[in-house]
């Protein structure tokens, strides 16, 4: 990879401007660091058990300290990536789509491999993860959503291939992205839906024709329906969500417990560490439903602050997009901002009962290993995109 660093590349290519020594976007790194710090605290709080045993240092890997280790590792990943030249992955005259292609191809390979029995691990009715040593898992979809953004940004930023041209610009882009989305959707509908939304947003940002986009939306909804009805549990979740009185002990249990957590927090919360719903009432309280625990302990106000942090991230991402000087950076930054903030929005919508339950975590806050790493990678990439903003134009 070092041979592909920006400095060397820029000296050999004419489209790319020389890499400056200026820093990456500090706001993004700061906001992500803040969210990860909140995550470490909240995951620690949510993992407390009634017997309240002290931490066994020989077993620290199975304790809340693990989230702290991941957050630290994530921070390092983010800082390293932020220091690299994101334009490595852009289309160049010399190598064409090869760098982005390698990334997308690798994602494709992993998405197929996870479906092979024996390689992928089946959990909760879905086969979407590889087992790693130390009890960790790795979901290819986590990687695929970043890979798709890199690939799509490179595709849509190719000079001389306008996205408005259906055959040469639009169709190849959505076709290739569609393959990644569809493969992800087989086992992980939530991530696929997120990827679909991000891809659509990138096409809009690339200036695609409204007619093309409309047709794509119709096709996308049709594909989503097929995916929903291909898995029995998805139908059940959907029906439970649509039901006026969901069975509190069945499919609606998670949501009703999440709402009880939010309600019992009131405006200002029960106070950090004083939540009760984390004692077995809210399932997945450290992961997908950490937001409910935040609301219980820190109140509606705490929940709004979290929403505000993601809106700040969204605003900062938009600033990066607006100030960026080349199409690739613009699309890449736009896609990455979207993927982080839309994931947060969907997670919050799920926890507050606005959309049906999906397996989607709250970025940077929910407990998790590989998912957090790839989100940090995405955030690092976004921060890197922000670096060019203050670089002198046409240097």
């Amino acid at each position, binding site marked *: 990879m070092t041979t592909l660093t920006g400095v060397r590349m820029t000296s050999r290519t004419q489209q790319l401007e020389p890499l400056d020594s200026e820093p990456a976007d500090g706001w993004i790194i700061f906001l992500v660091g803040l969210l990860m710090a909140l995550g470490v605290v909240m995951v620690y709080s949510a993992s407390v058990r*009634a017997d309240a045993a002290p931490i066994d240092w020989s077993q620290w890997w199975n304790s809340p300290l693990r989230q702290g280790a991941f957050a630290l590792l994530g921070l390092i990943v983010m800082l390293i990536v932020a220091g690299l030249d994101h334009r490595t992955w852009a289309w160049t005259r010399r190598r064409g789509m090869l760098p982005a292609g390698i990334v997308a191809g690798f994602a494709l390979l992993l998405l197929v491999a996870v479906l092979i029995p024996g390689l992928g691990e089946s959990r909760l009715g879905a086969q979407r993860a590889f087992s790693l040593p130390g009890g960790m898992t790795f979901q290819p979809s986590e990687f695929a959503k970043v890979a798709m953004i890199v690939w799509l940004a490179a595709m849509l930023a190719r000079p001389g291939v306008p996205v408005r041209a259906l055959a040469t610009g639009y169709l190849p882009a959505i076709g290739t992205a569609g393959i990644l989305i569809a493969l992800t959707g087989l086992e992980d509908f939530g991530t696929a839906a997120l990827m679909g939304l991000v891809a659509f*947003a990138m096409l*809009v940002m690339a*200036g695609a024709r409204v007619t093309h986009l409309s047709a794509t939306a119709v096709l996308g909804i049709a594909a989503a329906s097929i995916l929903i009805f291909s898995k029995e549990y998805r139908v059940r979740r959907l029906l439970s969500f649509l039901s006026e009185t969901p069975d509190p002990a069945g499919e609606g249990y998670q949501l009703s417990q999440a709402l009880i957590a939010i309600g019992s927090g009131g405006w200002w919360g029960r106070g950090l560490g004083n939540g009760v719903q984390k*004692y077995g009432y809210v399932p997945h309280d450290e992961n997908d439903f950490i937001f409910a625990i935040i609301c219980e302990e820190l109140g509606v106000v705490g929940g*709004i602050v979290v929403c505000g942090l993601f809106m700040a991230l969204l605003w900062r991402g*938009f600033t990066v997009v607006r100030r960026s000087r080349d199409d690739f950076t613009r699309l890449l930054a*736009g896609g990455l901002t979207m993927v982080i903030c839309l994931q947060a*929005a969907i997670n919050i919508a799920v926890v*507050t009962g606005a959309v049906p339950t999906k397996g989607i975590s709250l970025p940077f806050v929910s407990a998790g290993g590989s998912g957090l790493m790839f989100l940090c990678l995405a955030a690092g990439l976004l921060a890197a995109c922000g670096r060019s903003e203050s670089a002198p134009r046409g240097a």
Partner: protein
Amino acid sequence: MNTSSGSTVRTGLFPFVLASLALAIGAGRLVVIETTQGAELRARADSQQSATMPIPAQRGDILDARGRVLAGSIRRPSIFADPFLIPDIRFAAYSIAPVLKLNAAEVEQSLREALAADRHFVWIKRQISDEELAGFSEVREAKELGGLVVRYEAQRKYLNGRLASHVLGFLSADNRALAGVELTYDSFLRGVDGSRTLVVNTRRQRVSARPEDFIDPRDGASVVLTIDAYIQECTEKHLTAAAQTYAAEWATAVVLDPQSGEVLAMATYPDFDPADPIPAGLRPAEHKAAEERLFNRAISGAYEPGSLFKPFVVSCALEDGLARYGERFVINGPTRNWGRRTIHDTHTYSTLLLEEVVSKSSNIGMGMIGERVGNERLNRYVRRFGFGDLTGIDLPGEHEGLVQDFSRWTGYSTQSIPIGQEIAITPLQALAAFSVFCNGGILYRPRIVRGIVGADGTLLRDDSRPVAIRRVLDTRTADSIRLGPLVDVVLTGTGTKAAIPDYQLFGKTGTAQIARPGGHGYLPGKYMGSFLAGAPSDEPRVAAIVSIFKPGQRAYYGGTVAAPAAAAIVADALNYMRVPPQKSMPDRRSRGAGVADAD
């Protein structure tokens, strides 16, 4: 900001606006949830997160008149289980069964049944020993068994065993009062349970306490009885001896302070163990017998009094001047007809003085007195002596007796009532009415409770004062009956076996036929022998009744089966109460001669 430097790519504000809107909607949802459902959700949180456990109040004691504890409570550990919290029921059952001396298979089965029936509470074993508790705790710790909980439960202790069992009553296995003083004074004895509330996790394990929801239990008050444990013990001893000697089906005795109506002892033979009134594992017949033993015969059953009733009728004739002492009645026994009715005497008398009609218990003489008094007056006096009314004693299940409504009295009644037929009374009613002769003519309500003392020592209720219901007789009439005919009963009449040293005892024998259950007529050869006794005759301090039901031996006369026991009880009570020996003992020879051996 849509385009820049001629590129085809636009900034694309639109997706950012939508994403920002989505996040804002999420924040807005929080506000909506809080304002529209906040209170309801908090109520649901509270109901699912809290577990309230009772803190049982300590049940009050039952004390005798001198403060001796007859019934008290201790706390014993019991073990219950929530089968839903036991991961491996078989493992748990077979782990704990040996230390608790239980059958493992049965424990497992009861847990599985509860699981199937969706019950979260199963008693494993109640009121275990300290040894069992230690063993259980060790096993539970070592094998990390969940779902098994120790709860301390109150256990009632009757410190004198079976003493006064019919008075004290008993509790059910779950400490509900079922009989006796335990039942009538349950609201005082019980106290008020407190509770503590815990915040619990989904496995109902403690997360934290909620001190603001702690409710302190209020311990029950103690009830002080008029019963004296020693007199009770003597009473039971003599009653049991008499009942066993004459192979009685049952027997009962009551001892009263006739000047105040305080019940000093109340006993029924056979008795029972209040700690285990109906032992488990009895055959149906034994079970029925055990149930019958719980019956307090002194108050809960009414029987024809027979000759016991004669002094009451005579006193009414004397009170209203319809007869006088020294008056001679022409008997011409042994039988006499009133219309189609024939009245028999056990012995053949030609004439009898009024006193002798009572002391020799002449049925014909009583029939003649009944004729003089008349139904209307008889009915009035029967009611004034308290027959046909509850005495008002503070015990459950009192029988009011059977006195026919006056409209149903017939010509037969004129002769039947004076010899104690056509009427049924309880032994306690008989004794309360008998006390009228001892205290100068006043009917007192028999009382068994002197007062109630709160757990903090304050006096909650003082019941130590006598409750006079009414004056029944003029003092002179009452005293004359006692000093005349009733003393004669013991000196020369049917109750000579009741004579005791140092005190002149007075009384009345009664041998009643037993009415056929649920029909007319009497059981042939079955009797209830009774004796009403009081002493000393100049200033009575103790009155007692002993009734022996269906004595199986040849003897059945009240003067034989009941009088000695009654006399022994009275004598023991007087000695215990340190009543000085009587100064002037009536002389037997100065009274009429010829001892009757029957009533």
